[in-house]
């Protein structure tokens, strides 16, 4: 990303103040075609931006992060920039996607910043021309370009995995399943909890990748294990920690680590076939009701400070080159991962939901 900086033609560079003054429609004409495939200029957190954001005083943050952590991140921002309150609207990524579509369909522009767990959503929003190009300075400097949209419309805020997990009171380490294939053992019948791809973006990724790599017939066999079907990827670790089920077939790996740290009886398993991977990108909406606060929040979330919170408190992975990995969290490079394919998901999402509902009955 750093290499792009000198290429910027000064005449094409509208100052941030100008962008803010322009209406959403005007901004569209500025950015739409001429700057395709060229990132917008990088923006720092300036006193002027903070001042303008404080005037707005609030930001609506739609996210698929675990609620407790999302509120923690919001609080860190509120402490850093007093006078701006963050309203967290948390639901599953697929639910957030539906909600934004319904709201925009009725001309309700309530969302400022979104953070999802399904990159395919950003592709759809980009195609609808709903996103505002915005490139925080540190993203331009410290992010691998793979994690930034070429037009600067969305940035990968967090990278998460959907591993297996087990309750350490109910299952010993030796006995615990080591692979997806192990889950089909009859002894796990009635003991598995699983989240839903029509609710969760992480699970949409996981289901797509598992069906692609292991085949749909694997999921058909898994369905015969009498799995307990919950909605959110953040609920499976909770159900396992409670002891309601012994094994989670998918879900938020970061919560397993977080709960293990808190002393709850749960541990993580990276399955032998590979662990499903989901990038969680964030974007600012063009029609955001609080455009300055939105940009300030988006910018801060991707600074080293914001990203280190994601690494330390959420136990997720960051694309920021300067963040320091957390002790006790296995580095991403040491995990055998399944391959992410947002374009593939975007095409297949409806089919995945339909087949999943046919197999698991809900």
């Amino acid at each position, binding site marked *: 990303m750093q290499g792009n900086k000198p290429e910027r033609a000064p005449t094409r560079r509208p100052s941030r103040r100008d962008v803010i003054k322009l209406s959403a429609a005007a901004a569209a004409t500025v950015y739409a075609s001429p700057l395709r495939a060229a990132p917008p200029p990088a923006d720092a957190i300036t006193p002027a931006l903070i001042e303008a954001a404080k005037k707005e005083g609030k930001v609506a943050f739609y996210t698929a992060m*675990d609620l407790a952590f999302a509120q923690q991140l919001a609080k860190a921002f509120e402490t850093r920039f007093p006078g701006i309150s963050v309203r967290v609207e948390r639901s599953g990524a697929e639910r957030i996607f539906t*909600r934004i579509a319904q709201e925009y369909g009725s001309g309700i522009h309530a969302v400022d910043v979104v953070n999802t767990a399904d990159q395919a959503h950003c592709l759809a929003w980009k195609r609808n021309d709903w996103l505002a190009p915005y490139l925080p300075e540190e993203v331009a400097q410290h992010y691998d370009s793979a994690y930034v949209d070429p037009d600067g419309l969305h940035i990968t805020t967090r990278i998460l995995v959907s591993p297996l997990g087990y309750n350490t009171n*109910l299952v010993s380490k030796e006995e615990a399943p080591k692979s997806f294939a192990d889950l089909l053992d009859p002894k796990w019948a009635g003991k598995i909890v699983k989240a839903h791809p029509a609710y969760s973006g992480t699970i949409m990724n996981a289901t797509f990748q598992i069906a692609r790599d292991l085949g749909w017939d694997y999921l058909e066999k898994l369905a015969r294990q009498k799995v307990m079907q919950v909605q959110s990827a953040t*609920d499976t670790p909770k159900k396992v920690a409670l*002891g*309601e089920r012994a094994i989670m077939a998918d879900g938020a790996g970061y919560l397993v680590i977080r709960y293990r740290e808190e002393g709850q009886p749960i541990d993580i398993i990276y399955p032998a076939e590979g662990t499903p991977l989901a990038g969680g990108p964030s974007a600012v909406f063009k029609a955001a009701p609080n455009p300055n606060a939105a940009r300030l929040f988006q910018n801060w979330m991707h600074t080293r400070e914001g990203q280190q919170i994601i690494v330390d408190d959420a136990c997720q992975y960051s694309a920021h080159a300067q963040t320091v990995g957390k002790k006790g969290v296995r580095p991403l490079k040491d995990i055998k991962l399944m391959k992410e394919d947002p374009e593939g998901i975007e095409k297949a999402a409806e089919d995945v939901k339909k087949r999943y509902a046919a197999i698991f009955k809900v």
Partner: protein
Amino acid sequence: MAIALPTRASARRTFSVDLSVPVLAGLAALLCVLVALPVSWLVYYSLTAAPAPGAARSFTLAHFQALLTDPDFLDPLLTTVILAVSSAAACCAIAAPMAWLVARTDLPLSNAIRALVTASFVTPPFLGAVAWEILAAPNSGLLNQLYRFMTGAPQDEYLLNIYTLPGLIFVISCYTFPYVFVLIANALDRIPADLEDASAMLGAGTWTTARRVTIPLAVPALLAGVLVAFLQAMILFGSPAILALPAGFHTMTTKIWSLFQYPPKPELAAAAALPLLVLTVLLLRGQQAILGRRGYSVVGGKSAAPRQVRLGWTVWPTMAFVLLVLSLPVFLPYFALFNAAFSPIATTLVTPANATLHNVYFTFFELSSTQLALKNTFILGLAAASAGTVLALAIGYLTSRRAIPGHRLLAFLATAPIAIPGIVLGVGLFLSYTRPPLVLYGTLWVLLIAYVTIELPAAYQQLQSAFRAVNPELEEASRILGATRLQALRHVTAPLLRTNVLATWCFIFVSTIRELSAAIMLFTSETKVVSVLIFDLKESGDLGAISVLGLSMLLLTFAVVIGINRLPGFGGTRLRNT
């Protein structure tokens, strides 16, 4: 002023016209908008399809065909019927004997028992479902832990599994039986004692009298109770969403709701909503046929207080039975919620050592949706209760006094929404108000419309019968002295009806606070209400926050209901302001 006024009136008051015609027209138009608009959109959507987004819609039966042939729809329909029939049967099996015990025996504490049944009515069914998850989830449930502790059974053995169809039937019955109980208890209160006395004098024993006299007289109420329980179980959304989905099956309401997931299929949702609507209308016809003959149960006229059966030594087992029944919807769930609110982990028992205020702190100081949701719920509760009461009052007056031609139409329109399940109304309102000229989706107005529409039938029936109890001669006297209808209503009838008005207001307030099925279709991020927030929290498994929110919501409800009833002169001033 084009209207010629009598000089006497104009000398006293510059503006005094009998507004009955505009009032009728206005109310009829309002009711048409409330009821007919969403239903028409439902029917229209279910029968048409757009070949491409934005293209003209053309007639088709494809949605109904999909509905009738696709097992994805037939299974939930069958499940819903099984659920509704079983819940209705279970409710009556429990509520009827209990109502009889409370109304017709010398069982002690009968007022306290009635109050506790009311408490289970105030509890939102979805909150009860969450509480029962904490109690009877097969592995982590508190009752199953207790069972394993007592019997030494192995870890994966359990006594109860709430994530099953019987579990769902049980939980729904817990929060439906108050309706049946109240209907039957009221009917038993009204049965004149002289009929039973006559039976006793003719030599029948207690049991024979009960079997030959009392029970037959209560049958109409019992059948009405069956229907109410059936309808409630059929149209409930929250409990099936919480208990059926983890078990891997759908009911009609959860199916309709899932059709709004991206990409939304409003046509199929509308088509799937219509069977519920038709079934409800048919059942209500049946109920009317039964309730229409209700008159004979009070033929006895003025009579002594009902005879009380002496329980003797059986009072103890009987009391134990009643306590057991009440523990299911009230004691156990509230214990579970309190425990989850103050425990670090929802299914671990609170001890002084591990008790924590973390959940309370999180809910009120970290969870950023709490304030907004509480504010929205509060505003909507007050607004819906006030608007609904005023509307029901106006219609109740006009129809009970037959004040204007066309009052029958008003009565029909005001009772019609009872046939529209919440989720169906939600779909209809979504289709009606997401398009110009009235884009109300995204505002609190659309929720207010939903709540007023849903609660209008019950409010109207309560107030209409109250009006009937006030002798019209009082109003007539007022009118002879020169008052218009509205003035007579304001100065004469309203003060007499104060208690009924307050009761109706509170009823709508409570029902609004616990409503989920219409709200789940109509909320946006900025118009979230507490019930929807609790449902959101449920989906991500945040049980501690749910418990704190649910308990505060109940406290708020009780505080408002008690506060309103203590406010002196409230009913009067309120009416004068309208």
